[in-house]
């Protein structure tokens, strides 16, 4: 009994020694305690700061300037005589600036009604994973448009403020996975001057936008707004746009079909006359080019 007992002890000790020696070749990295998973902001839910027409839940990185040219051609239903709408183009040029990871501003000018516009977009809460993560990004956006056309009736008492309209919008969006993102955006537009006294000055709409990534650099997008109040649905329609985003180097190309001509919130929400049913849709594109105007040298914190 004693003999067996001792042999057993030696065997056990030998095994312990053996296991220690071989364990040393294993994961050295495990000896250094890994930090707990930090909070990480979810990025790139959409490839651009606009879904197609509507503001997206994405922001520009601080120090970035985005030069955007938007084009909307004529209606395809006009056929060959108008080269399916390509003979006629409406344009908006814009400059967007990223101030913080969750704050950006932009200015632009449309040829439609020669309208200047400016906006600010801020996200108090952003979608994040890790400790204290949050499931959605909540952003608010507000802007002003200024119609710079000459007065249609100069003899009338015209007010400068009549040229202006404002919009405010709440954007709630989520990147569900690498491929799919969805956002909703309840919006209100207030126009200081409307065409007739029977028309309300305020328009309420509920926007919905989504993107589905097909490959690393290509995504399908859809942008729809349901007009709740304030727009005569006998004259106008809900704006709907469907498109493809293509990302190359420093550019993002957004090619799409839409029933609206307007490229700022006031224009595409309150004045969309085209109808998808009657193929009164138009081809258009947004072309965005990023410039880093203030170099960053920081680790993505958060």
């Amino acid at each position, binding site marked *: 009994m004693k003999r067996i007992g001792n042999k057993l002890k030696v065997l056990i000790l030998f095994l*312990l020694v053996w296991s220690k*020696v071989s364990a040393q070749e294993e994961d050295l990295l495990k*000896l250094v305690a890994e930090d707990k998973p930090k909070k990480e902001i979810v990025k790139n839910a959409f490839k651009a700061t606009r879904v197609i027409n509507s503001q997206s839940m994405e922001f520009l990185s601080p*120090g970035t300037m985005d030069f955007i040219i938007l084009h909307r051609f004529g209606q395809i239903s006009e056929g060959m005589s108008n080269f399916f709408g390509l003979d006629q183009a409406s344009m908006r040029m814009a400059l967007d600036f990223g101030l913080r990871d969750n704050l950006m501003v932009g200015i632009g000018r449309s040829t439609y009604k020669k309208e200047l516009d400016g906006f600010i977009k801020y996200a108090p809460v952003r979608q994040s994973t890790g400790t204290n993560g949050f499931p959605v990004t909540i952003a608010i956006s507000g802007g002003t448009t200024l119609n710079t056309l000459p007065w249609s009736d100069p003899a009338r008492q015209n007010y400068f403020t009549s040229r202006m309209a404002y919009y405010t919008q709440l954007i709630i969006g989520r990147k569900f996975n690498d491929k799919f993102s969805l956002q909703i955006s309840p919006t209100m537009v207030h126009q200081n001057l409307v065409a007739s006294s029977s028309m309300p000055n305020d328009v309420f709409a509920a926007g919905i936008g989504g993107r589905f990534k097909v490959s690393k650099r290509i995504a399908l997008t859809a942008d729809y707004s349901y007009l709740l109040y304030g727009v005569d649905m006998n004259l106008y329609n809900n704006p709907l746009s469907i498109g493809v985003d293509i990302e190359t180097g420093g550019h993002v190309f957004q090619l799409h079909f839409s029933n609206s001509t307007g490229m700022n919130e006031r224009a595409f929400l309150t004045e969309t006359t085209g109808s998808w049913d009657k193929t009164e849709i138009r081809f258009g594109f947004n072309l965005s080019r*990023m410039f*880093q105007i203030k170099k*960053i*040298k920081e680790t993505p914190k958060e």
Partner: protein
Amino acid sequence: MKKILLVAIALFLGASTNAQDKYFTKNGTIIFDATTSTSPEKVAAVNKSVTCVLDGKTGNVQFSVLMKGFEFEQALMREHFHENYLETEKFPRSLFKGQIINSSQINYSKNGNYDVTVKGQLTMHGLTKDVETNGKVSVNDGKISIAAKFSVLLNDYGIEVPRLVSDKVAKSAGIKVDCSLQALGK
């Protein structure tokens, strides 16, 4: 029997992990550079929070690099690095597990400089490849500095460079490692 027991215990203690022989850092530096001669902008980034552990006894050395820790000068380059090239959401960390071949020649308790050869496996973007490089190990008052420079072929790790940017992003990236380790005290 007692003798056997004592010998066994001595072996056991002798073979147990001697923490003094291990060195580590959580702030190592790794720089990568994949700029072509025709590129108007530098395609490079630096990571200053690399974890590195070195076992002085065996020469085993391991690196863990959190890809999100790379700092870029251009935000868009950083976005593309994470989204399109390295797909860091799928592959958040890169690892190197290898050995300093002539580690036995290094005296970790005395100041000195040594030229070394490191051989191991680099796992990046989900793929693992053998890497061999020369390096330098310096011992200075208990601090171990390790430095190495080598290049990797992006294709080897499944990192695709589209033709459109092939005049900016090179086919291979130069990797520069610079870490200062201290003893892993326990």
